[in-house]
């Protein structure tokens, strides 16, 4: 494996689903990169293809896949060219793992949480149960779950604790990348803040990289080094969080940021009129054009990605 390469490079990733009415272009030509020990936040409205992107990365695909193509390099290795079995053995949960949406409700109710967290270690690293449980204790410490919870069942744990267990399960094989799909959306405010603290600490202590998929812009800023804005299956803007949050470039990003109610400012939030286009038959040209206040003739053509310093934006305004 080439260690000088970036952790993750995604090139022209495409995932379309087949339905009765036609092909749904859930992920359409997505490109981005992520370095070691960095966190990128993928922000977008529901139905913009965020979750499909996480599925495409981990190759957890449903049966009705219409088109699945592109290149994903993980530490320089092209993982898209691997066979399914090779991918399962060497990539999923070894190099990258997933905390699925509503992970706290995804735990097996009839298994003790310690045994559930130990399972990926036994399968992927081939350790014995005792050795695996040793790792589980260590991971529980990192995510802030008391060690004696190993012998408890999921129903004996609160939502926040179960979310930490799901996080421990993703971390226990020491992957270099973790994909988090809406890790805090079903949790209470104080629990949310706790989980974000845990994620920050893991990033400092273990050097893990994160892809955080969410629609909660305010909470996502707690972890983000980089931001990617997704709209109608495409990534329309990427950049460092320190550049993005003060001054987003794409009109959609600007309106999305302006729609966030803020506690510490008196600015009046706005809303974006209209609805995102159907992914079944997305409009030609810029997909945001119908809702965009700045649209002009050029927008009938699909904009390429323009580079502005370290930032990238898919909009004709920044030509």
């Amino acid at each position: 494996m080439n260690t000088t390469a970036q952790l993750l490079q995604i090139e022209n990733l495409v995932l379309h689903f087949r339905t009765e009415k036609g092909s749904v272009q859930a992920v359409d030509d997505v490109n981005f990169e992520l370095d070691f020990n960095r966190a990128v936040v993928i922000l977008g409205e529901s139905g913009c293809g965020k979750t499909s992107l996480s599925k495409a990365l981990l190759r957890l695909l449903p049966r009705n896949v219409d088109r699945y193509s592109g290149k994903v390099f993980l530490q320089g290795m092209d993982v898209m060219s691997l066979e399914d079995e090779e991918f399962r053995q060497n990539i999923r949960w070894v190099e990258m793992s997933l905390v699925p949406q509503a992970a706290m409700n995804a735990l097996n109710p009839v298994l003790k949480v310690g045994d559930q967290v130990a399972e990926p270690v036994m399968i992927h690293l081939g350790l014995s149960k005792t050795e695996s449980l040793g790792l589980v204790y260590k991971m529980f410490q990192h995510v802030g779950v008391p060690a004696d919870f190993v012998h408890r069942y999921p129903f004996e744990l609160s939502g926040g604790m179960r979310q930490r267990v799901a996080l421990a399960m993703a971390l226990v094989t020491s992957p270099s990348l973790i994909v988090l799909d809406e890790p805090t959306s079903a949790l209470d405010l104080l629990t949310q803040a706790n989980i974000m603290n845990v994620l920050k600490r893991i990033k400092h202590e273990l050097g893990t990289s994160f892809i955080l998929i969410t629609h909660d812009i305010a909470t996502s800023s707690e972890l983000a080094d980089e931001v990617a804005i997704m709209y109608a299956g495409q990534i329309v803007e990427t950049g460092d969080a320190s550049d993005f949050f003060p001054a987003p470039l794409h009109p959609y990003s600007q309106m999305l940021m302006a729609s966030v109610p803020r506690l510490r400012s008196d600015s009046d939030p706005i809303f974006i009129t209209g609805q995102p286009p159907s992914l079944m038959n997305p409009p030609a040209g810029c997909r945001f054009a119908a809702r965009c206040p700045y649209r002009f003739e050029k927008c009938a053509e699909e904009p390429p990605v323009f580079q502005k310093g370290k930032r990238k934006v898919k909009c004709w305004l920044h030509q």
Partner: protein
Amino acid sequence: MSFKVRQPAETLLSIRDLRVWYELRRFGFGHAGYVKAVDGVSFDLDEGETVAVVGESGCGKSSLMKTILALNVPTSGGLVFEGKNLADLKGNDLRDYRFGIGYVQQDPYGALPPFMTVRQILEEPLIISGVKDKIERLERIHKTMSEVKLHPVDDFLQKFPHMLSGGQQQRVVIARAMILDPKMIVADEPVSMLDASVRVEILKLLRALQEKHRLSVIYITHDLSTVKYFSARIFVMYAGSLVEKAETRRLLDNPLHPYTSALLAATSDPDARNADTFKEVPPGEPPSLVNPPKGCRFHPRCAKAITGLCDEKEPIDFEPEPGHFAACWLYQPE
């Protein structure tokens, strides 16, 4: 210092020392204690006033709301709406009481029957409330739907809930709550299931309806950042009781109760600098409502707890500033 002296005639809803306890049974019979979901809540709500009830899940917000909607029977305490005591209402009077309060549910998709069209959904409350004339019913449906901006009305009438977007579904829910011209709306997390871009739209719609019809609104939420766009006063609820009550600006600028401060500190605004710091969060989790801690229910998690006082005696409402109440021993007058 100026503050409004409340006229008794203006008060729409008055709640005194309300308790809602659910009995726990052992093996289906035999008493095993109570879940004290609402334990000693008192407040007044004026006509045309909006208040927000803020608290985490399990703090008793929903039990309080259901009691106001007359879906729960209170264990003790009084609830007076428009001068009538809820406990005395029976039959048609109770039905009329329910007609006076609209309910906006949290999950619009779950709250709308999937097999009924928008027209049927909105017509049903009118039929039940005794509007016999079909044309009048249709007129009222048209009027309410244009108020919630479901344009063009005729296109939406024959649609089923699954054909609508989340924002449109929530508009139908609001229209259903408004169709009987209620005096008061109870909105239970009306925007928490919606996307960020739609959230503000729905909040502004509720606000416009509130102003136009001078509605009283109880807005139940856990999101403090949306509260100031909507409510004149905030009540903070923790483990079954209201720990702080104040005008919105005052509470956000100068939170008194340590729990309120913790909630405000945990609320993020989008800012890249957030990633460099850890948030301060009180340790532990909200207590069990079956066996809440003695004294102040927040004391095991509170950094400012006074040993011998907070863990012994339950605090009463202190009023360190006029109109700003905090149930916390820190504000006990000398």
